[in-house]
């Protein structure tokens, strides 16, 4: 019972992780070269416009394995947003701070560790939260590619209008999404505690 939800959650997080890694690589390439950015950015915008259902059809045509298909769908539906959001965080690294760090002549990995990573971290966490919501909606559609387990599959079994069953599966998935969101928020609160808070909100 819970196993089905966990399967779906694992597929969601797996797809997001893949999209995050590929998105980060693309963002780094675009951030370092204006030419690459001019080339990739319209392609990503184009991908972003393709509906989730089209990806489902492409996945069925191009791939055999169910998990491969699902991963492919999750990857391409969340990749553009990740790439754009990460590029944006990378570009908004303070030029003043970058110059300060460079003036100490760091090695490349030092630069990444002491400046780039902490500076983009808030953007990374935000992009995870935003894409998680999107991915949890796409994943049940992705599970229509012939999966024999997962929330999408179970929902399909309820199609003879078993409202209670449909609700139960939906709520379970939403609950897990909320738990993951909560975990990300906790990481956010901990890792961004340096920012301090004003006593009165705006």
């Amino acid at each position: 019972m819970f196993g089905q939800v966990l399967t779906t959650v694992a597929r969601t997080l797996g797809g997001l992780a893949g999209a995050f890694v590929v998105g980060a690589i693309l963002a780094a390439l675009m951030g370092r070269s204006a030419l690459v950015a001019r080339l990739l950015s319209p392609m990503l915008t184009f991908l972003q416009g393709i509906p989730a259902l089209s990806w489902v059809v492409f996945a069925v045509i191009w791939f055999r394995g169910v998990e491969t298909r699902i991963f492919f769908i999750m990857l391409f539906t969340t990749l553009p947003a990740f790439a754009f959001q990460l590029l944006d965080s990378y570009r908004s690294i303070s030029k003043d701070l970058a110059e300060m760090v460079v003036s100490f002549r760091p090695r490349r990995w030092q630069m990444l560790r002491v400046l780039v990573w902490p500076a983009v971290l808030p953007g990374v966490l935000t992009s995870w939260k935003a894409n998680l919501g999107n991915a949890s909606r796409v994943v049940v559609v992705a599970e229509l590619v012939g999966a024999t387990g997962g929330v999408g599959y179970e929902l399909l079994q309820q199609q003879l209008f078993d409202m209670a069953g449909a609700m139960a599966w939906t709520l379970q998935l939403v609950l897990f999404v909320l738990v993951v969101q909560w975990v990300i928020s906790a990481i956010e609160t901990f890792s961004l505690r340096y920012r301090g808070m004003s006593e009165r909100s705006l």
Partner: protein
Amino acid sequence: MTADRPLVMDGAAHDAASLPVEIRFDKVSKHFRRPDGEGTFVAVEDVNLDIHQGELVALLGKAGCGKSTLFNMIAGLQAPSSGAVHVQQHDPFKEFAALRGRIAIVFQNDRLLPWRSALDNAAFGLEMMDVPLARRHEAARHWLARLGLQGHENDYPHALSGGMRQRVAIARAFATDAPIMLCDEPLSALDEITAARLRLEFAELLREAGRTAAFITHSIGEALDIGTRVVVLQRPARIAYDVRLGATPAEAERTEVRRRIMDVLTM
């Protein structure tokens, strides 16, 4: 003009027993492409300047005359358009790793990493030089204490005042123990009282360490108080006046130098 201490124009003559040259500008020009792409903008024009070991050079000049650009070339953040810059016989732009730990900069604003405590910010330069944690924290603690920040080691920058943040930035530079120090109007972002108090300490620190330093200032008083040499720039950066001061310049000499600086600045 006193006979035993000549006013030197454009670094042409030097004391016979001068120490090694630490920073050398050799016919350096720097152009920037205009934002509209129409031609170039000359920020630095044909500068020749030797800065010797132990000299505290005050750079004076109107806003936008290229002082920061000169610093950026020493720091290796920008390459000259023509001519050559050498720091301890190295090209600071091309030989990036060779000068690691040799130059420390105090910028106009504090430029602290907001996600690091005062201690880790002060230790930052040493961290880039691969100094082990315990040793760099010891040095950072020492310098924070010297700058009156004892008890604030674990504070994040957002919890410090502007003056305190600039002190952390100064601690970060001194903690590296770099032989060359560049300071770009380090006190200009502070209120007058804080700046005045910090100025004296700062001058003291620069002198006692016996390092080579260049500092940009817009205060003639500050230049004469801290500097052992004053270089006045015109726009675009060309050296208009260059004078070495004795350890304790007589009042008459100070007045004369001040007058000459005023003349050049108002030209």
